[in-house]
Protein backbone atom coordinates (compact mmCIF):
# COMPACT_ATOMS: atom_id res chain seq x y z
CA UNK A 1 0.00 0.00 0.00
CA UNK A 2 2.90 2.32 0.66
CA UNK A 3 3.07 5.82 2.06
CA UNK A 4 0.15 7.16 -0.03
CA UNK A 5 -2.23 4.49 1.21
CA UNK A 6 -1.15 5.02 4.79
CA UNK A 7 -1.69 8.76 4.37
CA UNK A 8 -5.18 8.16 2.90
CA UNK A 9 -6.19 6.07 5.93
CA UNK A 10 -4.76 8.58 8.41
CA UNK A 11 -6.47 11.43 6.54
CA UNK A 12 -9.85 9.66 6.50
CA UNK A 13 -9.66 9.31 10.27
CA UNK A 14 -8.56 12.93 10.75
CA UNK A 15 -11.30 14.28 8.48
CA UNK A 16 -14.12 12.46 10.22
CA UNK A 17 -12.69 12.94 13.71
CA UNK A 18 -12.21 16.70 13.43
CA UNK A 19 -15.48 17.15 11.51
CA UNK A 20 -17.46 15.23 14.11
CA UNK A 21 -15.78 17.20 16.90
CA UNK A 22 -17.02 20.55 15.56
CA UNK A 23 -20.52 19.49 14.53
CA UNK A 24 -21.02 17.40 17.65
CA UNK A 25 -20.14 20.29 19.93
CA UNK A 26 -22.39 22.61 17.90
CA UNK A 27 -25.35 20.19 18.02
CA UNK A 28 -24.97 19.99 21.78
CA UNK A 29 -24.92 23.81 22.06
CA UNK A 30 -28.24 23.98 20.17
CA UNK A 31 -29.75 21.34 22.46
CA UNK A 32 -28.58 23.20 25.60
CA UNK A 33 -30.36 26.39 24.63
CA UNK A 34 -33.45 24.45 23.45
CA UNK A 35 -33.77 22.88 26.92
CA UNK A 36 -33.42 26.30 28.52
CA UNK A 37 -35.96 27.73 26.04
CA UNK A 38 -38.59 25.05 26.76
CA UNK A 39 -38.06 25.60 30.48
CA UNK A 40 -38.66 29.35 30.02
CA UNK A 41 -41.58 29.09 27.56
CA UNK A 42 -43.34 25.73 28.12
CA UNK A 43 -46.35 26.86 26.04
CA UNK A 44 -44.14 27.32 22.95
CA UNK A 45 -42.37 23.98 23.28
CA UNK A 46 -43.53 22.54 19.93
CA UNK A 47 -42.28 25.46 17.88
CA UNK A 48 -39.03 25.73 19.91
CA UNK A 49 -38.43 22.01 19.41
CA UNK A 50 -39.00 22.40 15.66
CA UNK A 51 -36.60 25.33 15.51
CA UNK A 52 -33.96 23.33 17.38
CA UNK A 53 -34.29 20.52 14.83
CA UNK A 54 -34.00 22.96 11.91
CA UNK A 55 -30.87 24.51 13.44
CA UNK A 56 -29.35 21.11 14.18
CA UNK A 57 -30.02 19.82 10.66
CA UNK A 58 -27.94 22.68 9.23
CA UNK A 59 -25.27 22.22 11.94
CA UNK A 60 -24.92 18.61 10.85
CA UNK A 61 -23.91 19.39 7.24
CA UNK A 62 -20.16 20.06 7.88
CA UNK A 63 -19.92 16.60 9.46
CA UNK A 64 -21.59 15.14 6.37
CA UNK A 65 -19.05 16.89 4.11
CA UNK A 66 -16.26 15.43 6.28
CA UNK A 67 -17.86 11.97 6.06
CA UNK A 68 -18.04 12.29 2.27
CA UNK A 69 -14.33 13.16 1.98
CA UNK A 70 -13.41 10.39 4.45
CA UNK A 71 -15.26 7.83 2.31
CA UNK A 72 -13.66 9.19 -0.88
CA UNK A 73 -10.24 8.86 0.76
CA UNK A 74 -10.98 5.30 1.86
CA UNK A 75 -12.09 4.31 -1.63
CA UNK A 76 -9.02 5.90 -3.23
CA UNK A 77 -6.81 3.33 -1.49
CA UNK A 78 -6.69 1.35 -4.72
CA UNK A 79 -5.23 4.32 -6.57
CA UNK A 80 -2.50 4.49 -3.93
CA UNK A 81 -1.42 0.98 -4.88
CA UNK A 82 0.05 1.88 -8.27
CA UNK A 83 2.58 4.34 -6.77
CA UNK A 84 3.69 2.92 -3.43
CA UNK A 85 6.31 5.61 -2.76
CA UNK A 86 4.80 8.92 -3.76
CA UNK A 87 5.30 11.77 -1.26
CA UNK A 88 3.24 14.16 -3.42
CA UNK A 89 0.22 11.88 -3.47
CA UNK A 90 0.60 11.10 0.23
CA UNK A 91 0.65 14.83 0.96
CA UNK A 92 -2.44 15.31 -1.24
CA UNK A 93 -4.41 12.69 0.68
CA UNK A 94 -3.24 13.96 4.07
CA UNK A 95 -4.00 17.53 3.01
CA UNK A 96 -7.51 16.62 1.82
CA UNK A 97 -8.34 15.11 5.20
CA UNK A 98 -6.81 17.98 7.19
CA UNK A 99 -8.47 20.66 5.06
CA UNK A 100 -12.04 19.38 5.31
CA UNK A 101 -11.55 18.26 8.92
CA UNK A 102 -10.37 21.65 10.14
CA UNK A 103 -12.87 23.50 7.93
CA UNK A 104 -15.77 21.37 9.24
CA UNK A 105 -14.56 21.92 12.81
CA UNK A 106 -15.00 25.69 12.46
CA UNK A 107 -18.25 25.62 10.48
CA UNK A 108 -19.88 22.93 12.62
CA UNK A 109 -19.07 24.69 15.88
CA UNK A 110 -20.09 28.03 14.34
CA UNK A 111 -23.46 26.84 13.04
CA UNK A 112 -24.23 25.38 16.44
CA UNK A 113 -23.26 28.67 18.11
CA UNK A 114 -25.76 30.56 15.91
CA UNK A 115 -28.55 28.06 16.70
CA UNK A 116 -27.69 28.40 20.41
CA UNK A 117 -27.95 32.19 20.40
CA UNK A 118 -31.06 32.18 18.18
CA UNK A 119 -32.93 29.77 20.47
CA UNK A 120 -31.96 31.86 23.49
CA UNK A 121 -33.34 34.93 21.71
CA UNK A 122 -36.56 33.17 20.71
CA UNK A 123 -37.24 32.09 24.28
CA UNK A 124 -36.56 35.61 25.56
CA UNK A 125 -39.02 37.11 23.05
CA UNK A 126 -41.28 34.45 21.44
CA UNK A 127 -43.08 36.99 19.21
CA UNK A 128 -39.86 37.56 17.21
CA UNK A 129 -39.59 33.82 16.47
CA UNK A 130 -40.13 34.03 12.69
CA UNK A 131 -37.61 36.78 11.91
CA UNK A 132 -34.99 35.26 14.25
CA UNK A 133 -35.39 31.87 12.55
CA UNK A 134 -34.82 33.46 9.14
CA UNK A 135 -31.73 35.34 10.35
CA UNK A 136 -30.45 32.15 12.01
CA UNK A 137 -30.73 30.20 8.75
CA UNK A 138 -28.99 32.95 6.76
CA UNK A 139 -26.23 33.09 9.38
CA UNK A 140 -25.77 29.33 9.42
CA UNK A 141 -25.58 29.18 5.63
CA UNK A 142 -23.02 31.96 5.71
CA UNK A 143 -20.94 30.29 8.44
CA UNK A 144 -20.84 27.26 6.20
CA UNK A 145 -19.15 28.97 3.25
CA UNK A 146 -15.72 28.36 4.81
CA UNK A 147 -16.47 24.65 4.97
CA UNK A 148 -17.59 24.64 1.33
CA UNK A 149 -14.34 26.38 0.25
CA UNK A 150 -12.48 23.69 2.21
CA UNK A 151 -14.56 20.99 0.51
CA UNK A 152 -13.62 22.36 -2.93
CA UNK A 153 -9.90 22.28 -2.05
CA UNK A 154 -10.27 18.79 -0.52
CA UNK A 155 -11.93 17.41 -3.64
CA UNK A 156 -9.10 18.88 -5.74
CA UNK A 157 -6.60 17.16 -3.44
CA UNK A 158 -8.38 13.78 -3.38
CA UNK A 159 -8.45 13.78 -7.16
CA UNK A 160 -4.65 14.11 -7.35
CA UNK A 161 -3.65 17.57 -6.16
CA UNK A 162 -1.00 19.81 -7.69
CA UNK A 163 0.90 18.61 -10.77
CA UNK A 164 4.20 17.07 -9.70
CA UNK A 165 7.42 18.60 -11.00
CA UNK A 166 9.48 16.45 -13.35
CA UNK A 167 11.66 13.99 -11.49
CA UNK A 168 14.80 15.68 -10.18
CA UNK A 169 16.83 13.79 -7.61
CA UNK A 170 14.65 10.73 -8.02
CA UNK A 171 17.38 8.13 -7.53
CA UNK A 172 18.81 9.71 -4.39
CA UNK A 173 18.37 7.68 -1.26
CA UNK A 174 18.62 8.65 2.38
CA UNK A 175 20.85 6.17 4.26
CA UNK A 176 20.77 4.23 0.96
CA UNK A 177 17.24 3.12 1.88
CA UNK A 178 14.54 5.80 1.62
CA UNK A 179 14.09 7.31 -1.87
CA UNK A 180 14.00 11.11 -1.57
CA UNK A 181 12.10 11.80 -4.80
CA UNK A 182 13.44 15.35 -5.10
CA UNK A 183 11.13 16.15 -8.00
CA UNK A 184 8.07 15.41 -5.92
CA UNK A 185 9.01 17.63 -3.01
CA UNK A 186 7.50 20.77 -4.53
CA UNK A 187 4.30 18.89 -5.38
CA UNK A 188 4.03 17.56 -1.83
CA UNK A 189 4.61 21.05 -0.40
CA UNK A 190 1.98 22.54 -2.72
CA UNK A 191 -0.60 19.97 -1.64
CA UNK A 192 0.05 20.30 2.09
CA UNK A 193 0.42 24.09 1.89
CA UNK A 194 -2.88 24.61 0.04
CA UNK A 195 -4.68 22.42 2.54
CA UNK A 196 -3.26 24.30 5.54
CA UNK A 197 -4.00 27.69 3.94
CA UNK A 198 -7.63 26.86 3.21
CA UNK A 199 -8.34 24.82 6.33
CA UNK A 200 -7.01 27.35 8.85
CA UNK A 201 -8.35 30.33 6.89
CA UNK A 202 -11.83 28.78 6.83
CA UNK A 203 -11.86 28.22 10.61
CA UNK A 204 -11.24 31.87 11.43
CA UNK A 205 -13.86 33.27 9.07
CA UNK A 206 -16.47 30.66 9.96
CA UNK A 207 -16.12 31.25 13.69
CA UNK A 208 -16.10 35.02 13.24
CA UNK A 209 -19.21 35.02 11.04
CA UNK A 210 -20.88 32.61 13.46
CA UNK A 211 -20.16 34.84 16.44
CA UNK A 212 -21.59 37.82 14.55
CA UNK A 213 -24.64 35.78 13.48
CA UNK A 214 -25.35 34.64 17.02
CA UNK A 215 -25.10 38.16 18.40
CA UNK A 216 -27.31 39.44 15.55
CA UNK A 217 -30.01 36.85 16.40
CA UNK A 218 -29.90 37.81 20.10
CA UNK A 219 -30.02 41.52 19.23
CA UNK A 220 -32.92 41.05 16.81
CA UNK A 221 -34.92 39.25 19.49
CA UNK A 222 -34.10 41.95 22.05
CA UNK A 223 -34.90 44.90 19.75
CA UNK A 224 -37.19 43.83 16.86
CA UNK A 225 -37.87 47.50 16.01
CA UNK A 226 -34.19 48.01 15.02
CA UNK A 227 -34.30 44.88 12.81
CA UNK A 228 -33.33 46.55 9.53
CA UNK A 229 -30.32 48.30 11.12
CA UNK A 230 -29.14 45.15 12.92
CA UNK A 231 -29.37 43.20 9.66
CA UNK A 232 -27.41 45.88 7.77
CA UNK A 233 -24.61 45.91 10.37
CA UNK A 234 -24.56 42.11 10.46
CA UNK A 235 -24.45 41.62 6.68
CA UNK A 236 -21.73 44.23 6.05
CA UNK A 237 -19.73 43.08 9.09
CA UNK A 238 -19.88 39.43 8.07
CA UNK A 239 -18.99 40.21 4.47
CA UNK A 240 -15.81 41.85 5.74
CA UNK A 241 -15.10 38.89 8.04
CA UNK A 242 -15.46 36.61 5.03
CA UNK A 243 -12.65 38.24 3.06
CA UNK A 244 -9.71 36.47 4.83
CA UNK A 245 -11.15 33.09 3.79
CA UNK A 246 -11.43 34.32 0.20
CA UNK A 247 -7.72 35.29 0.33
CA UNK A 248 -7.04 31.80 1.66
CA UNK A 249 -8.97 30.24 -1.19
CA UNK A 250 -7.01 32.32 -3.72
CA UNK A 251 -3.66 31.24 -2.24
CA UNK A 252 -4.80 27.59 -2.03
CA UNK A 253 -5.87 27.62 -5.68
CA UNK A 254 -2.61 29.31 -6.78
CA UNK A 255 -0.68 26.60 -4.92
CA UNK A 256 -2.84 23.80 -6.34
CA UNK A 257 -2.98 24.87 -9.95
CA UNK A 258 0.73 25.63 -10.02
CA UNK A 259 2.33 28.98 -10.75
Amino acid at each position, binding site marked *: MGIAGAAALLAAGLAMGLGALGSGFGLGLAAISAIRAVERQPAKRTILFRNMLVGQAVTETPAIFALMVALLLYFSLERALDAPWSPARAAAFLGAGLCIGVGALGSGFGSGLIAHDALDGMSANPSSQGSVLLLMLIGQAWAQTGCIFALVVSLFLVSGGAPS*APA*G*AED*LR*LWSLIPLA*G*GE*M*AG*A*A*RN*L*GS*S*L*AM*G*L*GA*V*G*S*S*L*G*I*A*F*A*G*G*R*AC*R*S*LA*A*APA*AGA*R*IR*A*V*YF*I*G*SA*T*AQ*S*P*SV*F*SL*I*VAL*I*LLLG*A
Partner: protein
Amino acid sequence: MNEETVKLLIGPLVQAFALLGAGICMGLGGLGPGLGEGYAAGKACEAVAKRPEEYAQIFRTMLVGQAVTESCAIYALVVSIILVFH
Protein backbone atom coordinates in the same frame (compact mmCIF):
# COMPACT_ATOMS: atom_id res chain seq x y z
CA MET B 1 24.93 11.65 2.41
CA ASN B 2 27.89 12.94 0.44
CA GLU B 3 28.36 16.53 -0.64
CA GLU B 4 27.03 16.00 -4.15
CA THR B 5 23.75 14.55 -2.89
CA VAL B 6 23.25 17.51 -0.57
CA LYS B 7 23.81 19.98 -3.43
CA LEU B 8 21.24 18.18 -5.60
CA LEU B 9 18.68 18.27 -2.82
CA ILE B 10 19.06 21.88 -1.68
CA GLY B 11 17.23 23.44 -4.66
CA PRO B 12 14.02 21.36 -4.47
CA LEU B 13 14.06 21.60 -0.66
CA VAL B 14 14.18 25.39 -0.64
CA GLN B 15 11.37 25.56 -3.19
CA ALA B 16 9.28 23.06 -1.24
CA PHE B 17 9.67 24.91 2.06
CA ALA B 18 8.79 28.23 0.40
CA LEU B 19 5.54 26.73 -0.93
CA LEU B 20 4.68 25.10 2.40
CA GLY B 21 5.48 28.36 4.16
CA ALA B 22 3.15 30.26 1.82
CA GLY B 23 0.30 27.94 2.79
CA ILE B 24 0.93 28.16 6.53
CA CYS B 25 1.33 31.94 6.26
CA MET B 26 -2.05 32.49 4.59
CA GLY B 27 -3.79 29.92 6.80
CA LEU B 28 -2.72 31.41 10.12
CA GLY B 29 -2.85 34.96 8.71
CA GLY B 30 -6.46 34.44 7.66
CA LEU B 31 -7.52 32.79 10.92
CA GLY B 32 -6.91 35.76 13.19
CA PRO B 33 -8.52 38.55 11.13
CA GLY B 34 -11.55 36.37 10.36
CA LEU B 35 -12.19 35.76 14.05
CA GLY B 36 -11.51 39.35 15.02
CA GLU B 37 -13.69 40.94 12.35
CA GLY B 38 -16.57 38.63 13.15
CA TYR B 39 -16.27 39.46 16.86
CA ALA B 40 -16.39 43.17 16.01
CA ALA B 41 -19.48 42.67 13.82
CA GLY B 42 -21.24 40.77 16.62
CA LYS B 43 -20.52 43.47 19.17
CA ALA B 44 -21.70 46.12 16.69
CA CYS B 45 -25.04 44.26 16.33
CA GLU B 46 -25.44 44.29 20.12
CA ALA B 47 -24.62 47.98 20.24
CA VAL B 48 -27.22 48.80 17.54
CA ALA B 49 -29.85 46.81 19.46
CA LYS B 50 -29.05 48.81 22.60
CA ARG B 51 -28.92 52.25 20.91
CA PRO B 52 -30.55 52.16 17.45
CA GLU B 53 -30.29 55.97 17.15
CA GLU B 54 -26.44 55.80 17.22
CA TYR B 55 -26.53 53.44 14.22
CA ALA B 56 -24.40 55.56 11.85
CA GLN B 57 -21.69 56.13 14.44
CA ILE B 58 -21.54 52.42 15.39
CA PHE B 59 -21.50 51.33 11.75
CA ARG B 60 -18.63 53.68 10.89
CA THR B 61 -16.58 52.63 13.93
CA MET B 62 -17.10 48.95 13.09
CA LEU B 63 -16.04 49.42 9.47
CA VAL B 64 -12.89 51.37 10.37
CA GLY B 65 -11.97 48.79 13.01
CA GLN B 66 -12.50 45.95 10.57
CA ALA B 67 -10.47 47.69 7.87
CA VAL B 68 -7.52 47.95 10.26
CA THR B 69 -7.95 44.28 11.23
CA GLU B 70 -8.11 43.33 7.57
CA SER B 71 -4.62 44.74 6.99
CA CYS B 72 -3.14 41.69 8.80
CA ALA B 73 -4.81 39.35 6.31
CA ILE B 74 -3.51 41.48 3.44
CA TYR B 75 0.06 41.30 4.83
CA ALA B 76 -0.29 37.51 4.95
CA LEU B 77 -1.63 37.44 1.39
CA VAL B 78 1.26 39.59 0.10
CA VAL B 79 3.90 37.49 1.89
CA SER B 80 2.46 34.20 0.69
CA ILE B 81 2.23 35.44 -2.91
CA ILE B 82 5.87 36.58 -2.68
CA LEU B 83 6.79 33.12 -1.37
CA VAL B 84 4.96 31.32 -4.17
CA PHE B 85 6.40 33.45 -6.99
CA HIS B 86 9.87 34.15 -5.51
